[in-house]
């Protein structure tokens, strides 16, 4: 294989937009922002109040999982905290999420932690073993096994849960929760007691619930689970659906002690944020391959959305390879941005295009319908919020195409 192809393959690997952020973290590609790091705030608040609850919302690709992973790393450096990230969507069809699922997943994770912790290796763990067995029995009783991974270590003990069968009365308030929820609580409490006895605080960082399209279900589950985790003495952070921020769903944020909105970096107005995005790119490629002016162009086209920045850089790198260049230039970035914008315009109706044109021309965006919200969720419209003020723009890659449509006869 030629050295040029090998070299570009190596560059492209560094911009794995679809890869799990844990891989990027292991490779040293994740840079934490100096200002506005949710991970740092989580560490400080959970350090002070170990049983506090936290909700994180943000658009697709805004870096929420990355913040959870960074928070886990930071929290585990504290001597009295054990934190774990759990991607709920890896285990459960979140459309069928019911109260008790987070508790069971937390309990199973505690079981794994206890098994791996040398501190507990000489103790008689009969009670904990029984508790874990009961939790697993719940899986056997209520959950549908549809697969077990063989190669991937993470999947060895995984059970993919299609759904807990909710009893008919369950879809009400917390008082109506099925009795098995209380039993699940008791078993997880037995596991947690081990950590309480050693003055360790448990923190669960639940990821993947942002893909839940039904805010009412999210609220129902959270309403039952968060107080239960607090009774266990555990801290909880949950990545939730962006829709929790809007309209009638707004009270969802009040279920938590703290709430964070992971906005894109406001590229035009936030110099520190631009510097952060620049450092994200620089951590992946040196200036000889990715000149500073190319970074500036990528940051501008990304609209400050982390995953878009990475994806644009990967496509620009591909363009540079295809066009015979040894470095990524502005022309490569512009071709990548054009492709990106075209993807975003596919399938939009006249009404949606009108909304986008209004945002482009006047910066006016009102979330009047589900279609409007979908424009936010899909990042065709970006929301910059800071200190109570909110500004809207169309995704920068869409702007020139919308302008061209506007001028077309």
């Amino acid at each position, binding site marked *: *294989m*030629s050295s*040029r*192809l090998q070299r*570009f*393959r190596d560059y*492209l*690997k560094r911009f*794995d*937009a*679809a*890869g*799990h952020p844990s891989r990027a973290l292991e490779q040293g590609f994740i840079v934490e922002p100096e200002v506005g790091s949710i991970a740092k705030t989580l560490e400080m608040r959970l350090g002070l109040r170990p049983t506090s609850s936290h909700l994180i919302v943000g658009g*697709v*690709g805004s870096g929420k999982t990355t913040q959870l992973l960074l928070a886990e790393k930071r929290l585990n450096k504290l001597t009295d905290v054990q934190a774990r990230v759990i*991607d709920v*969507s*890896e285990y459960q*069809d*979140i*459309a069928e999420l019911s109260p008790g699922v987070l508790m069971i997943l937390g309990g199973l994770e505690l079981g794994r932690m206890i098994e791996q912790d040398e501190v507990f290796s000489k103790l008689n763990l009969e009670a904990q073993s029984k508790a874990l067995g009961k939790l697993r029995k719940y899986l056997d009783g209520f959950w549908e096994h*549809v*697969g077990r*991974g063989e*190669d991937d270590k993470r999947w060895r003990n995984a059970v993919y849960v*299609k759904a807990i069968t909710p009893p008919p009365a369950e879809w009400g308030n917390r008082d109506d929760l099925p009795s098995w929820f209380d039993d699940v609580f008791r078993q997880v409490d037995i596991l947690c007691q081990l950590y309480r006895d050693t003055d360790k605080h448990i923190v669960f960082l639940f990821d*993947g619930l*942002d*893909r839940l399209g039904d805010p009412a279900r999210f609220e129902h589950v959270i309403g039952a689970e968060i107080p239960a985790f607090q009774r266990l003495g555990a801290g909880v952070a949950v990545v939730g659906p962006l829709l929790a921020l809007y309209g009638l769903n707004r009270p969802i944020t009040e279920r938590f002690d703290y709430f964070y909105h992971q906005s894109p970096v406001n590229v035009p107005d936030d110099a520190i944020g631009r510097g952060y995005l620049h450092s994200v790119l620089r951590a992946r490629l040196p200036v000889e391959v990715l000149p500073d002016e190319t970074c500036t162009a990528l940051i501008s086209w990304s609209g400050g959305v982390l*995953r*878009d920045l990475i*994806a*644009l850089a*990967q*496509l620009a790198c*591909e363009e540079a390879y*295809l*066009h*015979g260049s040894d470095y990524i230039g502005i022309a490569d970035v512009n071709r*990548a*941005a*054009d*492709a*990106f*914008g*075209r*993807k975003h*315009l*596919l*399938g939009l109706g006249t009404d949606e295009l009108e909304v986008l044109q209004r945002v482009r021309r006047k910066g006016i965006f009102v979330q009047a319908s589900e279609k409007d919200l*979908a424009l936010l*969720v*899909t*990042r065709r419209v970006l929301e910059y919020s800071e200190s109570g003020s909110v500004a809207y723009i169309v995704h920068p*890659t869409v702007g020139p*195409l919308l302008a*061209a*449509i506007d*001028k*077309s006869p």
Partner: protein
Amino acid sequence: MNTIPKGMGSAELAIRVNACPKAGAWFAWLTPKLWQNRATEALSRELEAMNPAPVLQLAAQGDALDLAHRVRAAAKDATLILVEFEDFSKEAWAALDRLRSWFSREEPAILILSQGAFEQLMQSAPNFASWLGGSVWSWNAEADVLSGEEKEQYLQSLRNHFGLSDGQVIKMAEKDELPLEPEFAQWLVLLERGDLLGHGA
């Protein structure tokens, strides 16, 4: 003003895919239903000519969970071509979106689907769609190789890099003397001499 994704033939797409091993890259190739078999076969051939890694075709068959299982079970070193999304309902796309973590893999994957199916993906699977970045292209039968200026630019970069002319490469291929490097396979495809690929490249 035409805002549909740029047209692309199987050769250019294969070159792009071949440049992205272990980069977690996902591609969408928008192809009318009538031509999907032909496009899939052409892409498979190009990929197999460029790289010894296996190329696997998986049919969506309307069930996101089943597809997720098959993607997870597929050989880790395989390039995946995912087809038959035309019957994928809005609910199936939404389920695929919720199951996105199951689709995470290092080697490239290409979705071959109609524009209508892609629009459904964009509406119902926004999280999954974000993995595609800008790698969404329209199938173009006439652009089965890079067209015009782009093709010439790429050929020139190959000539400069290897210090060989097109004629020399063709002669080497005819004599079975071409090095076993994917870029020589790409070179022959760009010269519309894919018929020589069995000769060493």
